[in-house]
């Protein structure tokens, strides 16, 4: 069910394939790093690694929530809109202080999660349809609340966006903390186990007496709240609230990170470490192409190749 159950004692070829499936994404990250060490000027510097960590943080945080949703055999398309909603609310409530405003923004993300979860668990709408509805509604609401880009001058938020402790940016620290927390929840808590059981087989989970609906709602609340946190952090980094473009296509980046990281779309399994590596892989890929000044269309093609490879590696897992 989780990555703890590694296949042992299987024939060599199957074992190799298994290893590729489980560690392919890490190999990818390593290969890209080595390539950049060798061929990209000024790549090996603390400043560069800080930049990469800061740039990947919002995508990673959103991807953690997405991994939970995908683990229950669902998907959350509303994450990008939740980021936009969070940035709007953050700007509107900043007068009460940055922490209150951030709290309101995260609360709003959780509310969107409740709506998503309620539609999926109680009304029985397909996750892709339910979250699509909230994706459209969320962006609309964000733009009604804050029709255009607004600068954020709050010093505390600016410090959050660009500050660092012992050389590690706050954004990277928060993302790492949330990743560890998510890994703990998935592996060690009843809630995590129940979510994965539901992803494996919802009817079986129901027959086994699991609180299916409550767990599903909670999963989407987590996803919404994480997306809202990502929205707050992205706003702090940009020093502006931009609901028109913040988080656009974020749902696709997050799904890519999760899938490349080896979490199957069929549910029942969440690889948090793989998701972190998946997000890092996509970030490094984009960075490599930008640093070598290759045309932007190449980035999209390269991403497509990585996704196809990841799906190819995962195809054995799909056949259960």
């Amino acid at each position, binding site marked *: 069910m989780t990555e703890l159950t590694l296949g042992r004692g299987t024939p060599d070829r199957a074992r190799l394939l298994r290893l590729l499936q489980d560690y392919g994404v890490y190999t990818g990250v390593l290969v890209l790093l080595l390539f950049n060490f060798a061929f990209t000027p*000024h790549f090996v510097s603390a400043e560069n690694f800080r930049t990469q960590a800061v740039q990947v943080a919002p995508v990673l945080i959103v991807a953690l929530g997405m991994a939970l949703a995908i683990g229950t055999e669902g998907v959350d398309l509303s994450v990008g809109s939740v980021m936009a909603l969070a940035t709007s609310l953050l700007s509107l*409530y900043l007068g009460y202080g940055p922490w209150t405003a951030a709290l309101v923004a995260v609360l709003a993300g959780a509310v969107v999660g409740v709506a998503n979860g309620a539609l999926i668990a109680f009304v029985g709408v397909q996750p892709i349809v339910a979250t699509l509805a909230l994706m459209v509604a969320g962006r609309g609401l964000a733009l009604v609340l804050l029709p255009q880009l607004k600068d954020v001058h709050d010093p505390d938020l600016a410090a959050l966006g*660009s500050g660092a402790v012992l050389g590690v940016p706050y954004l990277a620290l928060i993302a790492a903390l949330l990743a560890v927390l998510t890994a703990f929840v998935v592996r060690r808590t009843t809630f995590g186990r129940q979510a994965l059981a539901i992803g494996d087989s919802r009817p079986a989970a129901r027959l086994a007496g699991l609180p299916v609906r409550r767990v599903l709602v909670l999963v989407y609340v987590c996803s919404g709240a994480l997306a809202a946190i990502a929205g707050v952090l992205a706003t702090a980094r940009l020093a502006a609230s*931009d609901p028109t473009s913040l988080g656009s296509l974020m749902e696709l980046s997050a799904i890519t990170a999760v899938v490349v990281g080896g979490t199957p779309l069929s549910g029942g399994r969440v690889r948090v470490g793989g998701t972190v590596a998946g997000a890092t892989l996509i970030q490094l890929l984009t960075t490599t192409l930008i640093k070598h000044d290759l045309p932007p269309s190449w980035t999209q093609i390269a991403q497509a190749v990585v996704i196809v490879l990841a799906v190819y590696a995962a195809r054995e897992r799909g056949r259960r």
Partner: protein
Amino acid sequence: MKPTALVRRTTARTLLAAGLMSSLALATGCTKSEDDSGSKPSASKQDDAGQVVASPGTASGPTCTIDAYGGQKTDLRTATVGFSQSEKEANPFRIAETASIRAEAKAEGVKLLTANAQSQFSKQISDVQDLIAKGADLLVIAPLNSDGWEPVLRTAAARHIPIVTIDRKINATACKDYVSFIGSDFVEQGKRAADRMIEATGGKGEVAVLLGAAGNNVTTERTKGFEDRIKEKAPGLRIVFRQTGEFAREKGQSVTENLIQSKPGITGIYAENDEMGLGAVNALKGAGKKPGDVKIVTIDGTRNAVQGIVDGWISAVIESNPRFGPLAFRTLDTFTKGEKVGQDIVIKDSAYDKGNAQTDLGKAY
């Protein structure tokens, strides 16, 4: 242990009710943003930079008269003008454009009907048809797309309604399907940006280009103008980096962060709109650079970018003028009186630099 179905339903209702209540609470007026004092001047209070025609409307180029177009002479003051806006008024350009049309209609005492297509082309087509049905005698259209206007043009032609398009062109015959197009020359904007870049860098060094969204004529024309002029006038200035920032601040920032790490010796950055330029400023600040270390030239002329010049981060901003109101109404007035108007009218874009940024900050939109 197992909750009954009834209990589950109740939980569901409570959850839903709680969700709804909190969203309502959020939406109601207990918001308090950072600067509620209202320091931001509204569009109507702006100094209207007015408009000067760059290419004289009637002196050169093909022209159009009401006799050639069909229809009767009318007085603009008694007519009803319909205005169809293409995109949501969510960015400074669109806000200033609509405000300019409204302000001019008010100043001229013309009855104005407006519609906004919210970036949906089918909505814009029905918007314009609605405007005609509501009795618009003259139309000002900011088209979302260039193609697909046949149904509207047919209706308008049947009633001899003069059409002026602003900021984007439609693919149709001037003086037959529509009267004139009023807009900026994006290639020229790119060339002027190149001139400013040469001036700021002394014509030597390495320049990066933050491109706009791919497949957009604004991007291709602003790039072409810039590159041609650099090649022609400053062979010592090399363009070493071209990446898209998709006209967004966030993307401009992350691309620039990568740029300044891989090419620390970069001399200048040409951003094809203000937002990406402001993203570049953020990135430079984050990398510990000082104002003026890297010369930035941008296009658009929004207030934030002009403020950037005052603060020393941006070297020059080429304006892309959104204030089409005075020119559009003057064109319609001249045309309905029976006089000649130009088919392609180029609006004058001003520019901001160290010399005028402080004094002209009020003109920026």
